[in-house]
C-alpha cells in the first residue's frame, strides 16, 4: 500500500562500492522483482530499503516521506531474509507470532492468523518445533510465514522459494500472488527463478554489479531488452549470441558468423554495411532444419532430455555455442552435424562493443 522511491542510492562496504547509484520507483501496489547475477547487490538493496543497512548515498522515500533515518522497525515493512534468520530459541509458532505481539495484536487474532499462515505454508504439524528440528525448506517456509503474517505496507522477499520443491513452489507462488491481490500492498521480490520473475512481476528490475540495467514489465524485458546483458539474463535457456556482420544494411541482410546470410525482415537498422554486430537468438527461435534450408550448420556437443522438451547444445563452425530448444524428445546424439534455421523475426542485434540493443 505504498509507493517506494529510490534516488541515487549508493552503498559501499569499506572501499568496496556495491551499489552504484540506483534509481527506481515502485508504485503503490506493484509487484516488483529484482533479478541479477549472484553478488550484484540485490540483498543489499533490500536491506537498505528495509532500513537494516544505512545508505552511503542517495534518498529512499516511502509514500513521499524520506526514510533514510527512520529505524527499520518504524518503516512498516516486512522481510523474508535470504538466510531466514529465524529466532532459534522460539518454536515455529512463536517465530510467527512475535511480530504480531509487537503490534499488540489480541491473542485470538494472533491465533487465527497463525492458523491461516500455517495452512497456507503447509506447516501445521511443525508449529511446536524449534527451527533446528526443521528441514531447509520447512525453515524457509517459516521465514515466509513470519513476514506474511503481518500486513505491512511493503513486503520484501529475498529468494523466498529457493529451497522448495517444484510443486510447493508453484503453490507458494500462487499464495503469494493471492496475498498480493488481497492486501494490495507493494512487494519487492528477489529471485533467480525465471518462471517466478516472469509470472509474478508487474515489473522486473535487472541489476548488474550495483546498477539497474533495465526496469520494466516482464515481457517488455523479454522482447525488448535494452542490451545484451538483459537479453541474456531474461529467458531460459539463455539467448544464443552469434557474431554477425551486416551484409547489406539496406536489405536488412546480415551474415551470421559461420553460415549464410539471413535477411532480417525489418530493414531500418541504423547500420552501415559491414558493421560487426552481435546477433541474439533465443533457443526456441532456432529449429533443426534440412541442410538445404538451414541458415547454418552446427555440431552437437551435448543433448539434454527433460522429458517434455530437450536441449541441444551445439557449436557453430567458428566455435560459438548455440543452444536449441526442441519440444518433446529427440534422437539426435552428440557428434552429429545438423543444420539450423533461424526465426528471423526473433533475432536481436546488439552493438558488439557496448552490448546495447540496436533498434530496428
Amino acid at each position: 500500500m505504498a509507493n517506494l522511491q529510490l534516488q541515487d542510492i549508493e552503498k559501499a562496504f569499506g572501499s568496496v562500492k556495491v551499489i552504484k547509484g540506483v534509481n527506481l520507483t515502485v508504485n503503490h501496489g506493484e509487484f516488483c522483482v529484482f533479478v541479477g547475477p549472484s553478488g550484484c547487490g540485490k540483498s543489499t538493496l533490500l536491506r537498505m530499503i528495509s532500513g537494516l543497512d544505512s545508505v552511503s548515498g542517495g534518498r529512499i522515500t516511502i509514500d513521499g516521506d524520506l526514510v533514510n533515518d527512520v529505524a527499520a522497525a518504524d518503516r512498516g515493512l516486512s522481510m523474508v531474509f535470504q538466510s531466514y534468520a529465524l529466532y532459534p530459541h522460539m518454536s515455529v509458532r512463536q517465530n510467527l507470532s512475535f511480530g504480531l505481539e509487537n503490534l499488540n495484536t489480541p491473542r485470538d487474532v494472533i491465533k487465527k492468523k497463525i492458523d491461516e499462515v500455517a495452512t497456507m505454508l503447509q506447516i501445521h504439524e511443525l508449529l511446536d518445533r524449534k527451527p533446528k528440528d526443521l528441514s531447509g525448506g520447512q525453515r524457509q517456509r517459516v521465514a515466509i510465514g513470519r513476514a506474511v503474517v503481518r500486513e505491512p505496507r511493503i513486503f520484501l522477499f529475498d529468494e523466498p522459494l529457493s529451497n522448495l520443491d517444484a510443486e510447493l513452489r508453484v503453490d507458494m507462488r500462487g499464495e503469494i500472488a493471492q496475498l498480493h491481490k488481497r492486501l494490495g500492498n507493494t512487494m519487492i521480490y528477489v529471485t533467480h527463478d525465471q518462471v517466478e520473475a516472469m509470472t509474478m512481476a508487474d515489473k522486473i528490475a535487472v541489476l548488474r554489479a550495483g546498477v539497474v540495467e533495465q526496469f520494466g514489465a516482464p515481457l517488455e524485458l523479454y522482447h525488448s531488452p535494452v542490451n545484451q546483458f538483459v537479453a541474456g539474463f531474461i529467458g531460459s535457456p539463455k539467448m544464443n549470441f552469434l557474431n554477425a556482420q551486416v551484409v547489406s544494411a539496406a536489405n536488412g541482410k546480415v551474415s551470421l558468423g559461420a553460415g549464410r546470410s539471413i535477411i532480417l525482415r525489418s530493414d531500418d537498422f541504423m547500420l552501415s554495411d559491414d558493421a560487426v554486430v552481435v546477433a541474439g537468438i533465443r533457443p526456441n527461435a532456432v529449429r533443426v532444419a534440412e541442410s538445404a534450408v538451414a541458415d547454418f550448420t552446427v555440431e552437437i556437443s551435448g543433448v539434454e532430455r527433460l522429458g517434455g522438451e530437450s536441449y541441444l547444445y551445439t557449436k557453430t563452425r567458428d566455435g560459438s555455442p548455440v543452444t536449441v530448444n526442441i519440444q518433446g524428445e529427440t534422437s539426435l546424439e552428440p557428434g552429429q552435424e545438423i543444420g539450423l534455421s533461424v526465426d528471423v523475426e526473433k533475432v536481436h542485434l546488439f552493438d558488439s562493443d557496448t552490448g546495447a540493443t540496436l533498434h530496428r
Partner: protein
Amino acid sequence: MGKAIAFLTRTRGSRDHAGSRLHWTDWFTYGYLLLGIVLMFGPVIWLLMSSFKTDAELNTFPPRFLPYAQEMITLDGHTKPLPIFTVTEGELEGVQVAQVRRVGIVSQVVKMDAPDEIIKIKVKEREPVEKLALAWENYSDLFKRFNFMQFLWNSTFITVISTLIMLLVNSMAAFALSKYEFRGRTVVLAMIIGTLMIPQTVVLVPLFLVVREMGMINSLWGVIIPGAATPTGVFLLRQYMLTIPDEILDAARMDKASEWKIYWRIILPLSAPAIAVLAILAIMWRWNDFLWPLIVLSRTENFTLQLALNSFQGEMATQWSSLLAMTVLTLLPIAVVFAFLQKYIATGIASTGGK
C-alpha cells in the same frame, strides 16, 4: 593426543555414530573424570565428613576419614558412663575393659563382668574402642546458638535481590556494548575492564566511605547495591553476546520489535548459557561474600550466614567443628541452585536457525 582431542572436541552429533565399544579415548575421559572426582570432590566429601567430627577428633593426628567417638558403657556402681578400651599387652591382652580413671601413666580399669574390681594397667597398654559417631550436635548447636533463620533470610534476600539487579543491569549494559556502535563505547569498556584491575581489598575503605555517604551502612542495601555493581558480569556477557548473529536482531527489527523487546526476548534467551553462568557466579559471590558485609553490617540482626559462620573465628582460636558444620549448611543452598542452573549452560543454540 590427537585422538584424545578428537574425543574431546567431538560434538553430540558426531558422537552418535560411534559404536558401543569403548575406545581408549573413552578410557582417558573417564579416567580424567575419575581423577576429577577424587581430586576435586574428595576433599569436599572429606569436609562433609569432618563437619560431623568433634573438635577433639578434628585435631587428631593422623586425620581419619570417618568420624569416630570412643565407646562408652554404664556399669553398676559407677554413676558416669565409662570409656571402653582394649588392652594390648600383658595378661589381659585382647580383653575389653572400662576405664574408671587415669592417674598419670596409670590407668585404672575394670572388667565388664566385674565392675568393682579395679585393675591397674599402663596407659600405653590400652587402646580406645571406637565406633562411628556423627556429631550432630555440631549442627544442632548452630540452631541453638543463634538466630539461624534470620541469617538465612538476610543472606537469601541479599543474594536474590543483588543477583537479580546485577543480571538485569549487567546484561543491559552488555547488550549496549556488544550490539550497538556508538561513540564512547571503547571508553566505557576500558573503564569497566580497568576497574577490574584494582584489587577489591584496597577499594574496601573508599567504598565504605561512599556507602556511608549514601547512608547505607548497617543496611542490607549497603551489601546489595555495591555487590550488583561488579564489572565482571558486563565483560563476561558482552563477550558472549558478540557471538549472537546480528541477523537475528535484524529479523526482530523487521518484526517491529522495540529495542527493549529485542533485549529481553531475543538477546536474553540467546545468552542463556552465559546468563546461567553469571547467575551461578553472582549467587555464589553474594552468598559467600564475607569481607564487604563484614564492614557494612555490624549488627546481629542483619548478619548474613557468612558473618555468622566467621564469628567462630576468634582471635586465638577457631571452633572448627561449628565452622565446618556451618560451611556445609551454607553450601547446601548454592549446591542446589547450581544443580538447577547448570542445565541452562548446555542450552546453547546448536544451530542458528538460518543458513
